[in-house]
């Protein structure tokens, strides 16, 4: 198998990245409803599972997921998120690629695990709340006073991050299975695979 990405592959990567980003964008719009904002790591990987599983059947070469995550991370950065989310995205993409590669881009088990790892990049946007905890809370304390700051600190303990990660993993597993069933039901029949 040719392991170098050729132009067709790069174009496919571009198309699926566009689709993935739009799905993400629309889903994030619903995130303005505060409850859904917290649930976003859960429902987003479910919706994005279908295009991602289709993407995996299309290219099947190392770097493809990494390029996708670099672009998504750059777009995230260019629209005003922290550079942390870019770094997280690239690291997640690279790990996911390694896992997919280990499964030869065929094994479904590897796809599920890889998709979970890839989806973790979503948390990059919220990570400053935990990583830059000190500077973030100094800022809030300056502005809002002690009582409010303590309330926020008690509401976002470190285990909250753990819950986010677990939600993300569960969402990805559901999304991967959904994607697999949809591929079987629709795309194989239509001859797209």
């Amino acid at each position, binding site marked *: 198998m040719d392991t170098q990405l050729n*132009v067709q592959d790069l174009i496919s990567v571009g198309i699926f990245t566009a689709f993935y980003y*739009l799905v993400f964008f629309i889903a994030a719009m619903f995130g303005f409803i505060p409850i859904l904002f917290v649930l976003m790591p859960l429902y987003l990987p479910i919706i994005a599972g279908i295009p991602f599983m289709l993407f995996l059947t299309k290219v099947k070469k190392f*770097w493809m997921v990494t390029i996708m995550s670099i*672009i998504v991370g750059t777009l995230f950065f260019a*629209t005003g*998120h922290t550079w942390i989310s870019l770094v997280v995205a690239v690291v997640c993409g690279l790990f996911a690629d390694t896992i997919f590669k280990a499964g030869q881009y065929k094994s479904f088990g590897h796809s599920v695990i890889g998709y979970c790892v890839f989806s973790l990049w979503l948390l990059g946007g919220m990570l400053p709340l935990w990583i*830059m905890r000190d500077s973030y809370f100094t800022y809030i304390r*300056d502005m809002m006073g002690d009582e409010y700051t303590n309330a926020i600190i008690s509401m976002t303990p470190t285990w909250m991050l753990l819950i986010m990660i677990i939600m993300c993993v569960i969402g990805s597993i559901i999304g991967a299975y959904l994607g697999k069933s949809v591929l079987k039901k629709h795309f194989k029949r239509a001859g*797209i695979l």
Partner: protein
Amino acid sequence: MQNVGVKQYFKLDPRTKLLLMFFINVTIFNVSNRYVIVVMTAIPIFLLLVSRKIKASLCWILIYTILMAVNIHFVPTTNGFQSVLLAAINMFFRMMPGFIMGYYLISTTTVSEFLAAMEKIRVPQSIRIPMAVMFRFFPTISEESKAISSAMQMRGITFASRRTLKNPMVMIEYRMIPLLMSIVKIGEELSAASLTRGLGNSVKRTNICKIGFHLQDMVLLLLASITFIGFFIY
């Protein structure tokens, strides 16, 4: 980003915009002084004003003022569940300078300018091509999506119809899958078309866009780096 060349009176190099973005991004998440943040918001709004995007900049000023008022007056007096909601507002408020800068970056840069800049900073082809394809595809996807949406309306599948409320998965199955299929097909055609036009060639490609650093870039970058270094020493 737009494709059509809009005449601009005040033009910055895309690389300058990206660098300013970086400065603002790093500053708003490391400095906790309220006045610094306001200055950081003023930079992109000023840039929007001088590039004659007056309506947009007024909108941003309004949004920013409202958020700031909510932040100063309501947030310290709440507790319990309300403050969870307001924490989201606070987070949003804090990221605001970045959002405005992002809006400026995207609304005033054309796709080919952006690609020319990417080539100048030696971003490899394997990232440039997908990016170009992606920007080209956003309008295509929304067109296709509109067509599918109107077709599905005839069958009674909209956001608020009884059928979708009963089973939200219908929405994904009837809207997303046809869209994915048509997008994949269009993509195949696009790659055939661009291969015949020599995209796979290994020769260095030329670009019609002229970008470069001018006086305004120098001034802005100088100011930005001075303030940036100043904040960190201070």
